């Protein structure tokens, strides 16, 4: 009994540490007062001002476009890199290539951001929407490559061989057999890439230019002038979106598991 109480306390403390800041943020987004530290009653006022704040909305739109585009390109490139690493066997330079895929994961973001900036300056590209997208593609594709690579390592090669054996050329085999089967990993990689792009402040602030302010940059610059409950409001919406995403994905996982169990019963039962 005593140890149960101890466990419960530890658990509560842990969760409190994780979630109290978020709860405070959400609660104060409904604050009628302009002051962040004083509760002035319930209000949806800040959601209204947020909606009519053109700068904030523009930034949100830029972020969404950068996220969708860079996650998609990053997923294609990352999947290709993963295929090369897993499938081409021991080609010369494989270790180097593999290391180069992992490096951006441990590289400080400041360095990635700075090096991208220097590159864009060197080749004389105007910084803006496209430079942020390229920069985000570069660092998110590594994450996709790792997610897809781990799926490919457990992929049964004989499935592809069977398709080839039945007369299906290699490219079609990839689209008819391999891709449908690794698709969950590709989607997971895409979602990871999108989240990382959405989240990124450092790399974006190095590589962006006028007219392409992303949401994190906008929030950060507004906070420097003082936190307004408007920021709380937009953050609450972001948290809501993430929560919905998590709930959907966990329901899907549960459903798949349930279907798998039913299939197993069916296999044991015999013909219907």
């Amino acid at each position, binding site marked *: 009994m005593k140890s149960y109480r101890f466990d419960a306390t530890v658990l509560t403390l842990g969760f409190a540490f994780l979630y109290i800041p978020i709860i405070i943020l959400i609660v104060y987004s409904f604050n009628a007062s302009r002051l962040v530290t004083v509760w002035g009653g319930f209000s949806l006022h800040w959601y209204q001002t947020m909606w009519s704040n053109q700068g904030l909305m523009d930034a949100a739109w830029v972020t969404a476009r950068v996220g969708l585009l860079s996650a998609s390109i990053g997923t294609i490139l990352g999947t290709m890199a993963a295929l090369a690493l897993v499938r081409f066997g021991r080609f010369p330079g494989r270790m180097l290539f593999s290391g180069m895929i992992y490096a951006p994961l441990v590289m400080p973001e400041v360095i990635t951001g700075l090096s991208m900036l220097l590159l864009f300056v060197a080749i004389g590209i105007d910084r803006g929407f496209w430079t942020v997208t390229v920069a985000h593609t570069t660092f998110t594709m590594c994450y996709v490559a790792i997610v897809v690579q781990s799926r490919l390592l457990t992929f*049964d090669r*004989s*499935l592809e*061989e*069977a*398709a*080839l*054996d*039945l*007369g*299906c*050329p*290699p490219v079609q085999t990839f689209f008819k*057999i391999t891709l*449908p*089967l690794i698709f969950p990993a590709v989607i997971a990689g895409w979602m990871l890439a999108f989240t990382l792009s959405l989240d990124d402040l450092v790399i974006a602030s190095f590589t962006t230019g006028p007219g392409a302010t992303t949401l994190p940059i906008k929030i950060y610059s507004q906070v420097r002038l003082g936190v307004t409950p408007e920021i709380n409001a937009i953050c609450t919406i972001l948290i809501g979106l993430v929560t919905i995403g998590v709930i959907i994905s966990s329901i899907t996982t549960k459903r798949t598991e349930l279907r*798998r169990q039913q*299939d*197993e019963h*069916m*296999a*044991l039962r*015999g*013909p*219907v």
Partner: protein
Amino acid sequence: MAKSLGPIKRKFSPWTDPAAVPFIRFENITKRFGTFTAVDNLTLDIYEREFFSLLGPSGCGKTTLMRMLAGFDEPTEGRILLQGKDISGVPPYRRPTNMMFQSYALFPHMTVEKNIAFGLEQDKLSKGEISARVEEMLKLVKLETFAKRKPNQLSGGQRQRVALARSLAKRPKVLLLDEPLGALDKKLREETQFELMDIQTNLGLTFLIVTHDQEEAMTVSDRIAVMDKGVIMQVATPAEIYEAPNSRYVADFIGDINIIEGTIASTQSALGAPGEVLIESDGIRLAAEQECPAVSGDKVAFAVRPEKVRISPDQPADTSVNAVHGEVWDIGYLGDFSVFIVKLDDGRVMRAAQANVSRLVDRPITFGDMVWLTWPRDAGLVLTR
């Protein structure tokens, strides 16, 4: 019980006909993976409509040989001829062979129907033709009611049937089977072996099967190639492999056998006619009716199958050859057979198997009994390799 026995099988032995043209020919095939030689300068002919087995322990090169025929691996040296044409460099998707994989390799995201239709769709057949062929295949493997299921909704035996149907759907010239029955339990495996033989005979196809299960190879094959370390030790019919193995390796790999090392004392019968080999082995004299390629004084092995050894508590009339005395050390009761492990007076061990023809034996031979083991002169075999 087999439900139907199908047509009576006719004698089939194209390999004895010197004019017969082989359907598949492996010509001086060598395959190296790095420094490891998986297949070593191997030559082998397989004939049309033959059910041919590659038999050997894992790592003997049998799967590599099959994969080279399917086109997944290219030989390092040598060439493979199919109907007289060199198929080196032809990619797997253009070869008239189909393979049934050990893991079955069913496409998990497609129904049984779609799996079977996959190969046909690649051939650009019409929808009607495809569905007719799929139906025919489902009927062949008795899975008509399972057409809409996914592979993970099937039992192991059913999956195996789908894999077979899929590999047969394109009516390949050669069907390659890689350990096809390995995952099935014994009873189902035996049933399926006979079904495979029926299908092979009825469709008139050439089957090449890779297996490490000697019983399976013996049951289904017209001929067996016993392989070891990338080379073929012997190619022959199951009966020849069993009764006349050409080496210690083959004799030991197929079934149970007593091998006694000895020296040739003479290669003539008592009357001086050739055709009988007499072997001395530490005081035991062994005789075999056989033309022997070795000469007196050569070290050879004498081999005799346990079921050809008679076990008796009574001393035989003639103890000069093929008769040894010992003590029953252990008995393995297998139901149809009992295997007696006998420790000879000089410490060596021999096995004798006896069919349990009657349910009750008045005076059964049991542990510790002193017994005589005898066998006729045509039971043993001299092995020089």
